[in-house]
């Protein structure tokens, strides 16, 4: 297996992009990444595209060749593969791209993630969001994805004393970070009171505990580490790429307050990278719901089980903290175009590790972690990246 580096990154603005189609945002992110990597398309080996629900959202399947063609590469007959893993589709595509380069089969690949949620009414988009849960045994009985996360929240509060205010802090933090990201869906700041007083979605979660429905695309170019200096002065090495799955339904987990897929993927990733959680300076984690961020911090190993609420409140995951979380604004503020999320997380880490994150820059960031989750944790993908000096 070869060492794999990220050589280029690209990303569209996230948000309600009424004037832009699925293919337009796909082209924009992909071409930005190719230009950033100074890669001639003749050297490209293939495309991996993360996407959760294009069929339901835009009546279009078979989208990997569609994006390849739209980018002007249809006549080159490159392999193009769509990868789906619910909300973790983007990071799962990155894992496939990583394997393709690491194996030596391809030298350079583009990994993209794209989703267009605003071409359907909000209710339809919400229904499709819940299709990452178990339709037959959860959704048919009245569950939605936010309702399932609310079940996790209620039990977390019961078992560990997590408070409503501790949940709300996660959203306040996300918007604080998002306010510095020009690509973010939301750049407004929130107060604790605004989050806690927002209309209920599934108690104890309210509207502002939940990430929005966004359009967006992101892309990275991967290549072998030994060729990286031809493309960039600041290659970023993928030191771990790991996937773990769990039962589809929340009700089949041994403990509903623990994301076992995250525990396992993180353990494998830290083993592969020969690192420990305290080595990480920047992390992009799954804050689709405020509770999912707290549980993730625990299950990634940043804090002890049950302690994320109070620890988050101390500011240790904010600017100046030991590990700064979701500098992009996370899913909550940067936005949540399902398949694009996992790729955008890595775009943000690369910017941080290269020292190109401007106002959001975490000084001395050398090691970053990204965690992308599908559904209520049936899939978790963890990547660890290091600046190559």
């Amino acid at each position: 297996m070869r060492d794999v580096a990220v050589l280029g990154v690209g990303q569209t603005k996230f948000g309600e992009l009424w004037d832009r189609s699925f293919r337009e945002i796909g082209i924009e992110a992909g071409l930005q990444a190719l230009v950033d990597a100074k890669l001639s398309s003749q050297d490209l080996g293939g495309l991996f595209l993360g996407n959760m629900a294009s069929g339901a959202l835009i009546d279009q399947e078979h989208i990997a060749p569609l994006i390849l063609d739209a980018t002007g590469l249809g006549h080159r007959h490159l392999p193009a593969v769509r990868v789906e893993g619910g909300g973790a589709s983007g990071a799962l595509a990155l894992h496939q791209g990583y394997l393709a380069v690491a194996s030596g089969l391809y030298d350079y690949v583009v990994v993209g993630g794209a989703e267009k949620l605003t071409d359907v009414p909000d209710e339809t988009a919400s229904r499709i969001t819940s299709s990452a849960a178990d339709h037959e045994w959860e959704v048919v009985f009245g569950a939605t994805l936010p309702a399932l996360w609310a079940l996790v929240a209620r039990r977390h509060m019961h078992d560990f004393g997590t408070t409503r205010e501790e949940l709300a802090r996660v959203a306040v933090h996300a918007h604080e970070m998002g306010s510095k990201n020009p690509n973010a869906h939301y750049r407004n700041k929130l107060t604790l009171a605004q989050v806690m007083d927002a209309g209920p979605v599934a108690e104890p979660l309210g509207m502002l505990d939940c990430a929005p429905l966004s359009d967006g695309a992101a892309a990275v170019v991967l290549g072998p580490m030994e060729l990286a200096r031809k493309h960039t002065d600041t290659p970023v090495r993928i030191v771990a790429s790991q996937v773990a799955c769990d039962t589809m339904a929340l009700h089949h987990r041994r403990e509903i307050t623990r994301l076992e897929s995250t525990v396992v993927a993180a353990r494998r990733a830290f083993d592969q990278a020969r690192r420990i959680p305290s080595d990480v300076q920047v992390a992009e984690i799954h804050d689709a719901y405020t509770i999912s961020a707290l549980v993730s911090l625990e299950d990634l190993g940043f804090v002890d089980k049950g302690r994320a609420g109070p620890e988050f409140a101390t500011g240790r995951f904010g600017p100046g903290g030991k590990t700064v979380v979701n500098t992009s604004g996370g899913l909550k503020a940067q936005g949540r175009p399902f398949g694009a999320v996992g790729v955008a997380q890595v775009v943000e880490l690369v910017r941080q590790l290269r020292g190109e994150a401007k106002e959001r820059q975490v000084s001395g960031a050398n090691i970053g972690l990204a965690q992308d989750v599908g559904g209520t944790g049936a899939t978790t993908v963890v990547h660890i990246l290091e600046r190559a000096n």
Partner: protein
Amino acid sequence: MSVARFWRETPRRYNLGGSKCTMCGTVYFPPRAVCPECTSHRQSIEKMVPYQLSGEGEVISYTIVHDAAEGFEMQVPYALGLVKTPEGPVLTGQIVDIEPETVAIGLKVRATFRKLREEGASGVIHYGYKFTPLDESGILPSARGPAAPAPAKDAPGPERTST
């Protein structure tokens, strides 16, 4: 959803038919074809037998849903819970016949046969289980049926009611 897609699940959704591993005794709902608990997972193939849940259980977590799942829009706000059965499996279902605000972790409940939702265009009605408080004093007066006989202690499966 097509009629067949819902119809084929009726033994489970109407009658709480699960399965039990004859190798290790673990009970599953919905039924599994192979036992995840058995160390020799593969040897449990064809060793799983049907097993009926009693329908009783305890709420281990709950939420009050305001932004409904598709087909449940007319029922908001509704309580949704995770119910742990004495046989082992945990089920996701609505908790009904009770003010949603009074649902709590630890509430004892019993499965009941109800209409879940109607499918928009096709008009297909989906039935299945919901949960109602075991302690009748917790049940809303409006939900108390006229002279409903107490279920026999050994009655298999959930009690059936008309709504």
